[in-house]
């Protein structure tokens, strides 16, 4: 890869934020801060921060290990530890990292957990993951927040009440016990006010893909954009500043009619606009991205950037109802939507952002995403008559990224889109 990768100002800010966070984690023992391990989907980081504790997200560590080419060895070690080939590779990568001293992406040691907060139960693997962590860190307290699935296309008042009850009776008491601090609702409300601003910024940012050329790539760059909010900065003033700066930069790009920034500079010509479903592959992230920007394909929306929370359909946290907001936020994350809701959301993206095609990257490891993708594809094809593409890879297991297979299918997909454009233009 070329050394002089093009970077936006906000990327530099983000890098500092993340570095500071890992620095705080590595010195947690000295500063006496307690550490909570939790997950990205529906992460209630505001609550963790209101107790002055620090969050750790094992999935983020796993994807970072994947990008830094360490996941292959970690997975091998986890498999030697007894995890089978079919187990989610995020889990195995995380377990492998812990076996090898739990050194995080910045090279600093990640402290052991003082609390395991299982905030999203829609993914069954998460339950098993934390059971494994519980064995690796004997005696660590576990707080379980059961998240009801949006089976009937909506969140009912009973579902919210059920979750608020768990927050009050299970999560908050455990946090008080571990942190030694009392629950401070004003502090939580202040954090939620920040979150609410950030959520609006995020919506504005991802909405800029309406422009032609799209000023951003909502998948490959999008995963960087959602970095801060999904790795410790929900509810912080830094997040508000970061997203304000990012939005400002993107508006400048629009004024200058600039396309998205890729690792090799600004994309010159926008040839295809795509909506992508499913997480990216992390082990070959650059190669994977290059397959798209080389073809002039820009992603105008992706479901993966909604993995932490979905704000497209109008949801915002309400600081006046803090616990209810946290509950609804959790239940609103992308993989907690039922399949019909996902189809509706994706079809809104395809229409609003004028996509030429819809592509699924089906991930071997991830049932939360992959189950139902064929049904989603067929429904979208029927409903919108949009060309559909399908590729397969994995999150962080390098053995499951076949460059030639993916290239072959993408080439066919892009030629298919081109042919269709020619016909439409002629007509």
């Amino acid at each position, binding site marked *: 890869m070329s050394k002089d990768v093009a970077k936006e100002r906000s990327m530099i800010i983000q890098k500092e934020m993340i570095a500071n966070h890992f620095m705080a984690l590595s010195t947690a023992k000295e500063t006496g801060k307690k550490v909570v391990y939790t997950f990205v989907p529906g992460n209630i980081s505001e609550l963790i921060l209101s107790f002055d504790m620090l969050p750790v997200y094992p999935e983020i560590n796993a994807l970072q290990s994947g990008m830094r080419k360490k996941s292959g060895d970690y997975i091998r070690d986890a498999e030697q530890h007894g995890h089978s080939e079919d187990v989610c590779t995020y889990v195995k990568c995380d377990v492998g990292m812990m076996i090898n001293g739990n050194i995080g992406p910045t090279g600093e040691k990640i402290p052991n957990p003082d609390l395991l907060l299982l905030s999203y139960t829609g993914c069954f693997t998460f339950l098993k993951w934390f059971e494994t962590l519980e064995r690796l860190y004997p005696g660590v307290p576990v707080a379980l927040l059961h998240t009801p699935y949006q089976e009937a296309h909506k969140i009912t008042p009973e579902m919210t009440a059920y979750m608020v009850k768990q927050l009050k009776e299970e999560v908050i008491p455990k946090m008080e016990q571990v942190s030694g601090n009392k629950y401070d609702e004003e502090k939580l409300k202040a954090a939620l006010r920040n979150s609410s601003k950030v959520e609006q910024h995020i919506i504005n940012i991802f909405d800029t893909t309406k422009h032609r050329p799209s000023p951003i790539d909502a998948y490959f760059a999008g995963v960087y954009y959602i970095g801060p909010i999904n790795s410790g900065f929900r509810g912080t003033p830094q997040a508000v500043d970061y997203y304000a700066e990012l939005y400002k930069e993107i508006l400048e790009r629009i004024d200058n009619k600039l396309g998205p920034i890729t690792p090799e500079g600004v994309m010159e010509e926008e040839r295809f606009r795509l909506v992508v479903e499913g997480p990216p592959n992390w082990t070959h992230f650059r190669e994977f991205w290059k397959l798209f920007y080389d073809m002039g394909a820009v992603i105008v929306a992706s479901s993966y950037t909604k993995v932490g929370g979905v704000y497209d359909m109008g949801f915002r946290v309400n600081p006046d109802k803090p616990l209810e907001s946290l509950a609804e936020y959790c239940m609103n994350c992308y993989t907690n939507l039922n399949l019909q809701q996902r189809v509706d959301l994706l079809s809104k993206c395809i229409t609003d952002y004028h996509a030429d095609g819809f592509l699924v990257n089906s991930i071997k490891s991830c049932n939360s995403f992959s189950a139902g993708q*064929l049904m989603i*594809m*067929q429904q979208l*094809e029927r409903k919108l*008559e949009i*060309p*559909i*593409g*399908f590729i*397969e890879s994995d999150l962080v297991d390098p053995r*499951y990224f*076949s460059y030639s*297979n993916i290239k*072959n*299918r993408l*080439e*066919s997909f892009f*030629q*298919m889109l081109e*042919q*269709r454009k020619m*016909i439409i233009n002629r007509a």
Partner: protein
Amino acid sequence: MKKYFLGIDLGSTTSKAIIIDENDNIIGRGITNTRANYTVATEIARLEATYNARFTLLKMKLQDEIESRPDYKRYIRDVESVFQYLQFKRRLDRLSVEFRDTISTTFSGEKRDAISGYVDGIVSRIGPSVLDEFLTGQLGSKNQFFRDIVSERYNKEIAGLGKDFFEPMMLVYDKSITKVENELTEYDFRELVDHSMALLNDKYAGLGESSSEESGLAFDSELNLLKGNYKRIYDSLKGHIGFVAGLDIHITDMVGTGYGRALLPFPEKSIRSEILCHAFGAHAVFPDTRTVLDIGGQDTKAIQVDSHGLVTSFYMNDRCAAGCGRYLGYIADEFNISLNELGPLAIEATKEVNICSTCTVFAAAEIRELLNVGQKRSDILAGLHRAIVMRAMSLLARSGGVRNEFTFTGGVARNQAVLKYVSDLVLQNYGKDIKINVHSDSIFMGALGGAMFARRNVIN
């Protein structure tokens, strides 16, 4: 000058070439299984397609005579068969040289002499028997490869030799065949056609004196006519053949597709994905096609197309090639029969043995197990064919199902047993009203689509 367009499909197992005219009519086909490299493969397929095109043009030129006179038609057919045989014979001669080479460098003393004796005998018997099959069995139209034709006969000959010689004889064959297969042999069309006609005239001349068995020609009414007429037909044909031999088959544009496409020295507009080409080819031959199933050497594609032949979605096997052509090749090896014998044997089955393995390698172990417990070969084969089709059905389902009309393409579509199960299962799962199309040129659909794209490149 007339314009012609070339499509090259460099598949995982075979390379195909198609030449079309300005009206999308197929006039030439060429195919090779050489594994030399894609440049050689392209040349072999292209040359074969060009020879074939000359015969097609000849037949188009003489359409009236062919339609009104059966002896005329027969004569041309026989010339083409002998022409194909002569190509085969040159390769066989090359193989014979290679055999001698291998034997002299691998063996010594009495063993060498004995092996040489066996091999010479086999080669001398293969030649005439194959000529007979080209003439009477239309071997040339079956798209069989040199390797298949020779190995089928070679294997039969050495089957009875006993184990002292069986292994060395196999070694000689395996060491020699690849070189010959990977060699590009160019022929002078004119010279080869003249030679073919001379051979044929001798045959016809002999018809009066000998029985049909000795002449290598089955006796029938067309031949009866030819017996007295061949000289006159020959005289009138000579000029026409000279004309097509001298024709410049000018390729105006070409498009390459298939796995090797990136290696072709073609400009970007001349490289197309095989998904688009297969769909386009299948749609050209059967314009009401909406779903295409293509089973090739190493992949299976389920493609949905719209009324213009444009792809709307596709689905391909990933990570595992069980259920493709190579699976059949592997199974044929396990049963020690040729690929062409698989389908017919499976059709004879009285039941289908259930094959559990979805993996090619495991299936081989399962076959041995089943043979050990006394299952019949044909029944096992029927089960294997069904297993392949079940995989294709799952792919079809994932791609969005089968819509009317359904066109089955790829090399595997020539296997009668696969075709039977595809038909049965498509009708069973998607309704009896689905029309199922299979074309005798099914293996050429990708190359045809490529040639059609080439023609459109020029128009646009």
